[in-house]
């Protein structure tokens, strides 16, 4: 009997270990009551001490949201979301007295990041990264701020930006993703709790990679991050966003909005590594991730480059897009989306060519394992005035095992005869011969899968900034654990 019990416990502990970053930080949250109504929207706005115009914008969004239909065109299967069964605001309690330096940051928080292998202090020193930490909806630490300030760079939480730089926020928020864009973005507009704000002034090349780490912490808390990044004329910025979330039982709704604006000759590089909790083997308890990310190349010769590594979430609905408005502007989308277990992902991009001689490039690598479903959905639209526009799209899918699915749904709309649009797609299976070859050389099967898949994604991973690439490679291997054998 004892032995049986021991076995059961061992198996259970193995199951729990599967999500390596699934630990919970104990910080008391100060939450708004469950459910969503105008009072909650007002509560959030008041809690953040927001000006009237911000509240009005939120309320406008909320009223519009109530009239909207859920988008149903994606290849995702899930029970309808009960919006009244979630909390919309929580903040770590220690936020009442905002820490002025890292020393004042809740040590519990710092330990959390240490567990992730990304200690703030070390990062600050070693990687030269300025970190704006979003923890449970509220930014608690911003580093390098002074140094950045000297160059006129603004890097702060969106709440702070609303207070300190209302003219910029008013001008640009909702200019790329209007509040009524889609139901998820609209919800975000009404209840967003925090996020990052970046402004790079004319002619400035941001000297460090700006980065934010997101984690979901309090139970049942929808995460509604809002990021707004403006690169003024002749500027450059590289922004990193990475997330790992602690394990939770309840489904957690995540609806983020990211808006990027690139003026004449400006360049924005936006990289994401996403590892939200994917749920158990049946998909229970995982994060629902509905994200609206969009950038606009507003100025001539501007450039926006998205790099995405998606390994987590039970559901992913995400299409980082670029509107190429300025003449000669260009955009890139590099993506790795991995689904395992019961995960479902419907992701891709939109490239909207409006300006002359605009160029876009899409490289998408989808990996499906377990019984997951992975869909690439991409739109390339060439407007009537986009003389000489060009797009190149490459979509590769890799299947691990025989119970998963990979789907490619490209949409191409061309209204200009001078445009050139290319689309290439491949689907392959990880072969037994490849695995045997690796194993014969001594590499255990799971590591062999990680290695082959990392090779498959290399073209995308090498677009990531160095310190992120290493983390991403590890994630790729971790997220495919249990996919073979």
């Amino acid at each position, binding site marked *: 009997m004892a032995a049986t019990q021991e076995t059961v416990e061992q198996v259970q502990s193995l199951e729990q270990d599967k999500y390596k970053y699934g630990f919970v930080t104990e910080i008391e949250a100060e939450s708004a009551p469950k459910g969503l109504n105008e009072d909650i929207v007002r509560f959030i706005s008041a809690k953040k001490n927001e000006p009237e115009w911000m509240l009005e914008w939120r309320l406008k969004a909320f009223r519009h949201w109530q009239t909207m239909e859920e988008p149903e065109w994606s290849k995702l299967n899930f029970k309808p979301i009960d919006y009244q069964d979630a909390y919309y605001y929580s903040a770590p309690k220690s936020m009442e007295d905002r820490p002025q330096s890292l020393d004042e940051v809740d040590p519990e928080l710092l330990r959390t990041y240490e567990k992730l292998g990304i200690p703030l202090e070390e990062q600050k020193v070693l990687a030269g990264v300025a970190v704006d930490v979003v923890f449970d909806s509220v930014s608690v630490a911003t580093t390098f701020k002074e140094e950045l300030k000297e160059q006129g760079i603004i890097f702060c939480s969106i709440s702070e930006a609303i207070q300190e730089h209302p003219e910029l926020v008013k001008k640009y928020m909702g200019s790329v993703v209007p509040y009524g864009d889609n139901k998820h973005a609209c919800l975000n507009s009404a209840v967003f709790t925090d996020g990052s704000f970046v402004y790079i002034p004319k002619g400035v090349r941001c000297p460090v990679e700006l980065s934010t780490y997101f984690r979901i912490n309090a139970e049942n808390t929808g995460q509604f991050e809002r990021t707004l990044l403006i690169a003024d004329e002749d500027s450059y910025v590289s922004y990193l966003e990475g997330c790992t979330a602690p394990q939770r039982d309840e489904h957690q709704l995540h609806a983020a909005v990211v808006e990027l604006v690139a003026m004449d000759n400006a360049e924005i590089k936006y990289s994401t590594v996403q590892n939200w909790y994917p749920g158990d083997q049946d998909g229970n308890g995982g994060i629902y991730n509905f994200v609206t990310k969009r950038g606009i190349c507003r100025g001539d010769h501007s450039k926006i480059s998205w790099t995405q590594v998606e390994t987590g979430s039970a559901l992913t609905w995400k299409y980082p897009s670029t509107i190429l408005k300025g003449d000669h502007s260009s955009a890139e989308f590099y993506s790795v989306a991995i689904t395992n277990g019961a995960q479902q992902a419907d992701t891709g991009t939109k490239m909207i060519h409006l300006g002359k001689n605009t160029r876009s490039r899409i490289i998408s690598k989808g990996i499906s394992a377990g019984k997951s479903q992975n869909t690439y959905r991409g739109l390339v639209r060439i407007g009537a005035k986009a003389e000489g526009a060009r797009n190149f799209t490459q979509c590769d899918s890799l299947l691990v095992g025989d119970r998963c699915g990979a789907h490619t749904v490209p949409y191409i709309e061309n209204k200009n005869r001078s445009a050139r649009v290319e689309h290439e797609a491949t689907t392959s299976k990880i072969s037994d011969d490849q695995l045997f070859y690796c*194993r014969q*050389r*001594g590499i255990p*099967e799971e590591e062999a899968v990680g*290695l082959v898949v990392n090779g498959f994604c290399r073209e995308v991973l090498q677009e990531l900034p160095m310190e992120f690439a290493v983390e991403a490679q590890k994630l790729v291997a971790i997220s495919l654990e249990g996919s073979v054998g």
Partner: protein
Amino acid sequence: MLEIKNLHVEIDGKKILNGINLTIKEGEVHAIMGPNGSGKSTLANVLAGKDDYEITEGEILFNGKDITELEPEERAGEGVFLAFQYPVEIPGVTNTTFLKEAFNAQRKYRGEEEMDGLKFVKHLRQKTRDLGISEEMLKRSVNVGFSGGEKKRNDILQMSVLEPKLAVLDETDSGLDIDALRTVADGVNGLRKPDNAFVVITHYQRLLDYIVPDQVHVLAFGKIRKSGGKELALELEEKGYADFTGAEGEAA
């Protein structure tokens, strides 16, 4: 070092090997020759532990330990290396990365400390220089876009880095021109040591002009029909396998 006792193997119920007996000592090179379909490649794959093969009888002792139940990666860790007839391509994985993973995985299996990246790269560069292989090859994806000869040389490089105790060369000479053949053979000869052993599986005698075996075995119908010194290979070259391809069991 290697002792194969009465080994019987089936694939999908079809008998391929019918009682192989073979003993290989440290420092020896054994050649296994035979007509097509005699079970040569099966023997190589079974030694390496490939799935799909069912051992119905017999055992494989490697340094006294029965390895028939070990996974392929465990056998590799024990020191078994297979040079493939058709080396596999792994797009996007550089030779350096692949070798480092393999090298450290084997060390880990043996309970040895893993080697850090910088030190390993130094070690690897030395090996490429010793073999006269260009360092540029290290940056390329494993076997992707390699010519037949390059793939085989790459296998030899892997062998020299991983330093196996027993290397099985499965028709390494197939598809190689005479120059490539010589390069590969030189590589193998350079790796011969008193404490390792080689099994050279080949259809033709010519490889054995360059890698001189201590013993030659003729495999036909899943059994070793004849064993002898290196002169047996020459005899086969002259007479062909006719003596062994008659009715099953009627070998000379």
